[in-house]
């Protein structure tokens, strides 16, 4: 399945990998419970806000004419975007046979599933009457009605639904051999849990034969899927005749932005995991550097897309388009636009320096700004396009988010981190079998154990 590579140190054997990763499932520290309590508290804020929204209506959020797509839709696109790099790392780099993905892909994949779970909540909150959500689904009803399949919102429902299903299945598939590995070490109630969730995995040749084939096809299906999902999300906007939205660059621009933000989030999540769980020998600086390179590549595409948008607004000769982009950069929301341009257009340029790419503290700080920048990108695209030209003459007031918007957003972070924290303590957050795949296999006579591969370091 993968080339054997020279291990970074001879200490890293199969047994070392199993035990080091299984150790992450040990008794949690006080710090872990503190983080979990913070996440649950944030989720509590979100739930309380939602109760208020249900009782008193969406008017509690900052919606004001003509801005009726605002923070909730911004957060939806933000979280869907976060999800994307997980599939990039787990599926696309799998097809490219990138050895380095093995140490980081599980974290990225779990992030994908939880980010899609978070994203999916926002359209439901945004529609106001959550109990009618099933109207989106084509189901036979007494009025003989069917959904409008020409609407990008229906495409979105199909894309997000498929993405959530496939990425969850992909995560579970990858987990099965690793759950079996921790099952064989575990005791007590965990042994029972893992015995059931490993669905009888023993690592027999027949299991591997069907599993590796199936995994390959799942990766091959997930690859076009991930590119389609954010394209479809971008068409929610691009299909509408709104200056700032109605452009053909949106699909590749959104996909690049999604992977950029997702790689940022992977760095944000991996830095503490590596430190807390002592995985320095499995997740190395090399892995962070590769993630930083992905950030640099996708960030440059995003920066290019920004330049392209402004150039085309000017070059189109359309007065409305020019006015919309002038408003974006110098109107009431200039601060949001410039936050996005600095964080996404200029900040990744720091990653050209190898010193920055190999400094984990610097990468962690940059990754936080990547997340902030990408949230503002969606805010700018959605809110500022709706609030700006040519709509300013019908504006009631300058749109501003209220406590209800922030409360729901805080809740979404709590929801995401709660699932993520529960995941890393209960299931292997780093793939056990795939990390072993990039090591040289044990052979008779240890002299031959090293250098069995192409010489490339993982």
């Amino acid at each position, binding site marked *: *399945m993968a080339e054997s590579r020279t291990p970074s140190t001879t200490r890293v*054997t*199969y*047994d070392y990998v*199993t035990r080091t990763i299984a150790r992450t499932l040990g008794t949690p520290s006080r710090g872990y419970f503190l983080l979990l309590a913070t996440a649950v508290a944030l989720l509590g804020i979100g739930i309380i806000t939602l109760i208020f929204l249900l009782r008193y209506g969406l008017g509690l959020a900052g919606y004001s004419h003509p801005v009726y797509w605002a923070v909730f839709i911004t957060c939806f696109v933000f979280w869907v975007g976060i999800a994307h790099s997980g599939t990039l790392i787990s599926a696309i780099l799998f097809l490219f046979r990138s050895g380095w993905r093995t140490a980081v892909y599980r974290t990225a994949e779990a992030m994908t599933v939880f980010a899609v779970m978070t994203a999916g909540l926002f359209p439901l909150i945004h529609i106001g009457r959550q109990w009618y959500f099933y109207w989106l689904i*084509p189901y036979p009803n007494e009025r*003989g*009605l*069917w*959904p*409008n*399949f*020409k609407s990008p919102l*229906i*495409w979105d429902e*199909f*894309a997000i*639904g*498929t993405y959530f*299903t*496939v990425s969850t*299945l*992909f995560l579970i*598939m990858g987990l099965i*051999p690793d759950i*079996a*590995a921790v099952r*064989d*070490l575990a005791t007590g109630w965990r042994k*029972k849990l893992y015995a059931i969730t490993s669905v*009888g995995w*023993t*690592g*027999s*040749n*027949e*299991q*591997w*034969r*069907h*599993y*590796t*084939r*199936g995994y390959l*096809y*799942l990766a091959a*299906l*997930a690859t*076009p*899927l991930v590119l*389609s999902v954010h394209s*479809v999300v971008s068409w929610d906007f691009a299909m509408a005749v709104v200056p700032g939205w109605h452009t053909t660059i949106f699909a590749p621009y959104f996909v690049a932005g999604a992977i950029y933000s997702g790689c940022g989030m992977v760095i944000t999540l991996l830095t503490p995991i590596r430190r807390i769980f002592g995985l320095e020998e499995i997740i190395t600086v090399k892995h962070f550097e590769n993630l930083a390179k992905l950030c640099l590549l996708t960030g440059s595409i995003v920066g290019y897309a920004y330049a392209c948008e402004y150039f085309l607004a000017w070059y189109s000769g359309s007065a409305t388009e020019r006015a919309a982009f002038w408003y974006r950069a110098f109107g009431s929301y200039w601060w949001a636009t410039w936050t996005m341009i600095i964080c996404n257009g200029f900040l990744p340029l720091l990653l050209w320096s190898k010193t920055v790419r190999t400094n984990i503290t610097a990468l962690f700080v940059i990754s936080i700004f990547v997340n902030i920048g990408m949230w503002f990108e969606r805010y700018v695209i959605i809110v500022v396009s709706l609030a700006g030209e040519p709509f300013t003459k019908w504006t009631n007031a300058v749109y501003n988010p209220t406590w209800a918007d922030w409360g729901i957003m805080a809740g979404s972070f709590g929801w995401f981190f709660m699932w993520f924290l529960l995941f890393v303590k209960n299931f292997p957050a780093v793939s056990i*079998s*795939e990390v*072993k*795949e990039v090591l040289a*296999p*044990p*052979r*008779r006579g240890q002299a031959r154990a090293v250098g069995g591969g192409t010489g490339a370091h993982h």
Partner: protein
Amino acid sequence: MLKLPPLFSAPPTPGALGVFAHLDTTLDAIKRLRAAGHADFTVYSPIPRHELEDALGAPVSPVRMFTLIGGIAGCSIGAWLSLWMSEDWPVQVGGKPIGSIPPYVVIMFEMTILFGALTTILGILLNTLFARRRAGTILYDPRFTNDRFGVFVPAGSDKVAAAEKLLRDAGAEEVRRA
């Protein structure tokens, strides 16, 4: 502990299990077993390795047919959903034809992926389940998911000694009998 009904646990198969510490000794055992005419033995490994696959010479997994059929079915269902439902409740949108293919390609694409993925999982589950039923309940060692390879040879009481000797000669560090 939960007791599973006998539907899921096949009767135990008699035979010999060898535990191997190295990949090359495991490969050696596979070669010797195939030379001796064994075909129904099971090899355990903590990771998939092409060397093992090549030594076993098993055909490509039939999972790919599941993926293909699922993908084609999903695409057809996507086309049927969007076209038939549009005709059943015709609404003019944006001056486009009632059954308008370009926007429906999105639905067809997503359904291809969804059904392709679901049938792939189904293919893996069914194929491994059938393989397990064929092999019966055979010896296993918890080290096989960590750093040891294993070979289980089904053999009746008359042949088990020969199988044990073969495994030991190939370099097994431990041999057990069931």
